[in-house]
């Protein structure tokens, strides 16, 4: 799938948008999640029946709703960056607020999922599947919280007019972190909720 943009860069930019440091942080985070995903996949390989049976106890629709919420949040943040880049900070702030709402929605849905499992007496020591499910999704959950803290900070500063076409570094860096959180969930959802 390739959706060609309507702008073409004859000379590629040498560095990604935002601060270079955030990209090294993102790469470190992706490495950690990559190890976690591989551990889950190979853990499953040794307990296929257990993993397939336990996967049926997950709320797949809630996982899909959360995918919609995270992707929509990412889209809102991308629209915010685009608006700020066109000297429209007020529009950008509104998009950021929409992104924060979607991210908050993710936490609420996940919170209900966790409450459901906890009330059923499920914990980290229930079995190997739930050890992976709870630790992997909670690790991601914490990243969503951090991402939301960053988005709120961006929203406040955007409202104050701190960003504009000449100063995109802060908002692009924060946006890149949020997109990383989205990217990780795009792998996590099919891996944990659907693949069997």
């Amino acid at each position: 799938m390739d959706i060609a943009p309507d702008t073409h860069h004859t000379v590629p930019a040498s560095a990604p948008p935002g601060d270079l440091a955030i990209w090294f942080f993102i790469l470190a985070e992706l490495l950690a999640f990559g190890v976690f995903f591989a551990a889950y996949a190979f853990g499953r390989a040794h307990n296929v029946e257990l993993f397939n049976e336990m996967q049926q106890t997950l709320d797949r629709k809630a996982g899909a709703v959360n995918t919609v919420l995270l992707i929509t949040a990412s889209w809102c943040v991308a629209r915010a960056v685009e608006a700020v880049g066109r000297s429209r900070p007020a529009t950008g702030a509104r998009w950021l607020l929409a992104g924060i709402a979607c991210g908050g929605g993710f936490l609420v849905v996940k919170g209900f999922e966790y409450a459901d499992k906890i009330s059923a007496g499920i914990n980290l020591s229930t079995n190997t599947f739930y050890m992976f499910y709870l630790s992997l999704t909670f690790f991601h959950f914490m990243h969503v919280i951090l991402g939301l803290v960053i988005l709120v900070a961006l929203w406040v500063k955007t409202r104050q007019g701190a960003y504009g076409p000449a100063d995109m570094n802060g908002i692009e860096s924060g946006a890149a972190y949020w997109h990383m959180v989205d990217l990780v969930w795009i792998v996590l959802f099919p891996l944990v909720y659907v693949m069997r």
Partner: protein
Amino acid sequence: MNTRHLNTVWVVLMLATLATLGIGEFGARFGLAGPLAMAALLAICFVKGRLVVLDFMGLRGVKFFWRGLLLGWLLLVSALIAIAYWIALK
């Protein structure tokens, strides 16, 4: 990145998410199960991840090194998942 392009990417990502859920809910009924379903899910996952990396993260116009790092991560993770799945089939 213009707004129309970002909106198009969002629509494609929504449809792809629907496809992932559809495979989980109804795939087996239509013969899309086992390794075939796994391959379809990984392919959809790669398409979605690639769009996020290129268009939301804004790496489309950036030197290949950076795109390569993130898309390489996506490919490596997908490959490891596929290998583990294949081992589980044996």
